[in-house]
């Protein structure tokens, strides 16, 4: 039984992410956001469901497609917007941009634009957590494509060998840019992960934040208790093009129908009542963040030379 409060809470978070990204789409033609954006629209429930099971002390590592995770983990919206606008009050002083968000105060540890690069970092952080008795989870998000990189194999092996408290979350949207799974992978992601002796779970309903929260909370509890690695695959669907604000059904690599089917299951698409109820307050917050961003100064020479070593 889901409490209505939980549904509302997670819905609100997911909706906020969607509206933020829709506002980014809306503003993109102004050229004020001068950084490529990889939108999570359609995939918000994954971020929201997972982060609800984590505390600020738990660490999350993610990818270039991480507005959703940054926000769900509790990252400050103003700081994110300023980062996208390339301003000095951005969460990384404008040096990161959309592909490199971080919010250490809530355990959002950074995102890499080189596919699969953060997977081993999360295992390393889990090793540190274990050795330093931090009682802390380390979670890493990556796409289905990332599992093809060699470092994924190296990391699963190490994490299983040392029994590290790390949770691998594969956000499977079935595409790497425009390439389908079947053209890239000879293995089943889940079975392959099992071959390392890692416990696994697959969640098919990647639009259902309640389900994801429920399942992931159990997994998080298990890992907190056992200290052992876990692997979670969550099926999901990216509504927009791989990078950029548009749609790309013209590309011919997938059909609008396939995406529409997913939309028909997605609460943020179907529960219009909730959307109407919650949107106004969220929109205010978003507009305020844009104002914040636009009022923030551009970084200059001082920032340029800072933080190299």
């Amino acid at each position, binding site marked *: 039984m889901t409490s209505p409060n939980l549904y509302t809470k997670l819905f609100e978070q997911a909706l906020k992410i969607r509206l933020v990204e829709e506002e980014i789409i809306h503003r993109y033609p102004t050229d004020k956001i001068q950084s490529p954006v990889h939108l999570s629209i359609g995939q918000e429930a994954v971020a929201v469901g997972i982060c609800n099971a984590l505390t600020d002390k738990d660490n999350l590592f993610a990818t270039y497609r991480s507005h959703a995770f940054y926000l769900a983990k509790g990252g400050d919206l103003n700081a994110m917007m300023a980062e996208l606008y*390339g301003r000095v009050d951005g969460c990384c002083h404008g040096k990161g941009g959309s592909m490199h968000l971080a919010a250490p105060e809530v355990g959002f540890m950074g995102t890499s634009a080189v596919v699969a690069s953060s997977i081993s970092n999360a295992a390393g952080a889990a090793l540190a957590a274990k050795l330093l008795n931090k009682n802390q989870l380390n979670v890493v998000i990556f796409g289905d494509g990332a599992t093809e990189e060699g470092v994924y194999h190296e990391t699963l092996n190490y994490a299983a060998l040392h029994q590290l408290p790390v949770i691998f979350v594969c956000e499977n949207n079935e595409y790497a840019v425009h390439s389908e799974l079947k053209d890239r992978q000879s293995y089943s992601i889940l079975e392959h992960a099992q071959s390392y002796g890692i416990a696994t779970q697959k969640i098919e309903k990647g639009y259902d934040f309640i389900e994801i929260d429920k399942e992931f909370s159990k997994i998080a509890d298990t890992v907190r208790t056992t200290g052992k690695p876990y692997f979670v695959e969550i099926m999901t669907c990216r509504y927009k093009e791989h990078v950029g604000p548009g749609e790309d059904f013209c590309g011919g690599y997938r059909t609008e129908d396939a995406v529409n089917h997913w939309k028909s299951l997605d609460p943020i698409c179907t529960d219009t009542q909730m959307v109407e109820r919650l949107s106004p307050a969220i929109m205010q917050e978003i507009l305020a963040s844009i104002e914040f961003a636009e009022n923030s100064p551009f970084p200059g020479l001082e920032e340029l*030379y800072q933080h190299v070593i």
Partner: protein
Amino acid sequence: MEIISYREALRESMESALANNDNTIIFGQGADDYKGIFGTTIGLAEKYGKHRVQDTPLCEEGMTGICVGAALNGIKPIHIHIRADFVFLALNQILNMAAKYKYMFGGHYDVPIFIRAVIGRSWGQGAQHSQSPQALFSHFPGLKVIMPSNSQSIIESYQYLLNEYSGPVISLEHRLMYDLNFDVDRDQIRTGKDALASYIVREGKDVTIVATSIMVLEAVRAAKYLAEYGIDCEIIDLHSTTDIEHSLIIESVKKTGKLLVADTSWVSFGVAAEISRIICENAPQYLTAPVVNVGMVPTPCPTAKSLEDLYYPNLESLISKIINLSGSGKNIPIPDEKSMADVYKKFKGPF
């Protein structure tokens, strides 16, 4: 004379490679999709088959090794990376295997693999999508590295390297040039090894500018501007960083006494350093002033536009450096152009 964009020149070169040699195979993430690697492979999978224009999984080291192995067994692979930064995942195969396979086994094997990697600024690419690793590759014997600065250069050097050369090659293509149009004169196509040679783009007597890739265009623009104020720049397009024509540079410096090196990467341990070495080993006495080097600021690449504009060279800073170096012209006005990216996003040429 035709007008051909950098992108079209690349696409044409890819198509001729497939057409001229049944054993040529193109590999690349998205090589067969509707965007076709920034348009350079569009339609080729349809025409030549998906086995010859292959999409690949995400596995740079593995794919490079597969290309090396295929090359050892009769295939001529072209392997494309949409960002040179991703090639760092494949450096073991490139540096330890491809560059050494011929030597290590006493000449038994050739490894004809041609790697295309896109470098450089477009906008907001950040620290991991903007690097220009020519210096890294050029330090290792066994590789050829080219940095074409226009369509003609692509057509001639790709033609030579894909048809006649049989060792590993890395071509670094600058993203900001893809949309630019260039004059191409097919009667003047350089053939054979000449297609790799450094060459004089513009003769001049006051300052020698040695430039790579898009910095050649910047140098040309600066030279045009300064010509009106009586500063006469000689510009050398280095073209290949592994096959540098020492005498061309030395002779030019002998004439001008002044050297500026403009490269797309960091200055330290970069092309600037190598050119200084060539001068110092051969003819330091020709220098009548300290050498000036232009490149990326010594930090990782920031994302914000305001920082990018400080990070990358621009016409304003280039021109003022040339003026200083030339020692003349205190009264020359400096143009107000702080962003190279802005220019190349609007200007389409022909250059």
